[in-house]
């Protein structure tokens, strides 16, 4: 089942085309890797899909018409930079999500952060980058949404926290949701993604099932990534 279809999407900044006639379909029940080097258009796409950025032209079709409040309820976006309020405590930010996002699963967050050895009375500001990274993934995944857009979740994160985040993401996939993860750290993500979309200069360069691509090209996705972007 299609979670989202993007047709002829264009996004133009003053002198740069960030997305250029971008077409893609995201299916439910899959973890999709959105891969590409810095500046390829991954974040721009995610911000447009989450309603934080206006498109220049094109169509974004969810399984039904979604706008405004409904769109923001169904799409859970996690940006690279921490979106959490630094002045809040862990407990307060969990309460904040619970207050505003329908169907938010508090227990899921508490379970996810249980191994982090942090007090819920600690402020967000006092958390390490790894702790904050795991908390924001846990908060996003505890939302009841249909499309999860996770932008560069491993940036600046230590290897132990990386594994925890990957486990958390891999354990979340169900038939009624689609998880899109953007990254250029392909090696880390290869084991949890079902489909991969390579973006170059705002266009889809290559798209396919991970297993199919691996067998057709006889190389790992990591090596394929290097192959695709070797001249950039």
């Amino acid at each position, binding site marked *: 089942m299609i979670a989202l279809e993007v047709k002829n999407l264009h996004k133009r*900044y*003053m002198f740069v085309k960030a997305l250029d006639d971008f077409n893609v379909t995201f299916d439910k029940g899959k973890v999709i890797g959105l891969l590409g080097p810095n500046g390829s258009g991954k974040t721009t796409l995610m*911000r447009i899909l*989450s*309603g*934080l*950025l*206006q498109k220049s032209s094109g169509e974004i079709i969810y399984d039904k018409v979604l706008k*405004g*409040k*409904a769109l*923001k*309820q169904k799409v859970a*976006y996690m*940006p690279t*930079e*921490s*979106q*959490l*309020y*630094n*002045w809040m405590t862990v407990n*307060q930010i969990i309460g*904040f999500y619970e*207050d*505003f*996002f*329908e169907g938010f699963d508090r227990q899921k967050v508490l379970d996810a952060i249980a191994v982090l050895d942090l007090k819920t009375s600690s402020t967000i500001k006092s958390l390490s980058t790894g702790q904050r990274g795991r908390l924001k993934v846990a908060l996003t995944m505890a939302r009841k949404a249909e499309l999860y857009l996770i932008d560069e979740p491993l940036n600046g994160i230590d290897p132990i926290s990386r594994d925890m985040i990957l486990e958390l993401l891999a354990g979340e996939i169900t038939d009624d949701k689609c998880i899109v993860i953007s990254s250029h750290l392909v090696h880390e993500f290869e084991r949890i993604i079902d489909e991969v979309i390579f973006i170059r200069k705002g266009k889809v360069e290559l798209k396919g099932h991970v297993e199919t691509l691996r067998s057709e090209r006889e190389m790992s996705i990591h090596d394929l990534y290097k192959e695709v972007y070797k001249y950039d």
Partner: protein
Amino acid sequence: MIRLLKFEFQKKWKMSLGVLLGYFLIYFVFLFKFKAEGTFNIERMPFQLVFFILLASGLFFAAGISAINSLRVEAKNSSRDLYFALPLTAYTKIGSKLIVSTVEATLAAVIGTISCIKALEYLTGFGVMKFLFQGLQDAPLDEVILALYVQILAGVLMLLIIYLSFAIFRSFFSQVRLGGLITIIIYIILMYLNVRYVFPFISIDTMTTQSIGLAVAGMTAYTVIIFGLVGYLFEKRASFD
């Protein structure tokens, strides 16, 4: 809306309490200093009075800055990706900020005015408050209520014009650098247009007694229109690059 109001108060109460404590610390230090210098020193009285008026104005100014920053910081910091992705309309978000800002500014005005009067009473022994209350009792209640309403509405309108400059920046110039400067330029243009073409028709200062009602209705309608415009731009047009 209630949840957003709770969030706004949760966000602001520590800073507001700090400002209030700072205000009363300065207030009492100088009040006792002036008293010790001599209660009936009539030559220094204007300076002392101006000091307390400026201090109270500072409290009101702080409330104004807090009201502006309430949206400015929200739209600028990385937490905007959470705030503007909340499944609530922009009208609700802007509305909650206006309510909290109005409460904050009204409290600052009341505290500033009462503390100023009390300082004057303490220094001179003259019952200013009693005198003012007598004056208020003689005034028709509907005029007092109307005056208060217009004061609050004017404050809300001024704040909305500032919010509109943020909304225009986010809608049409969000990719441009020097966002602060551009927002100020937008604000100056908006204020010029308002002073030139709108305020003369809704300002009660320029109206006759008969047309005051019309001016207040016009001012109310204009405030609602600006609110709608700010909400629309944040809902449909704003980009957070």
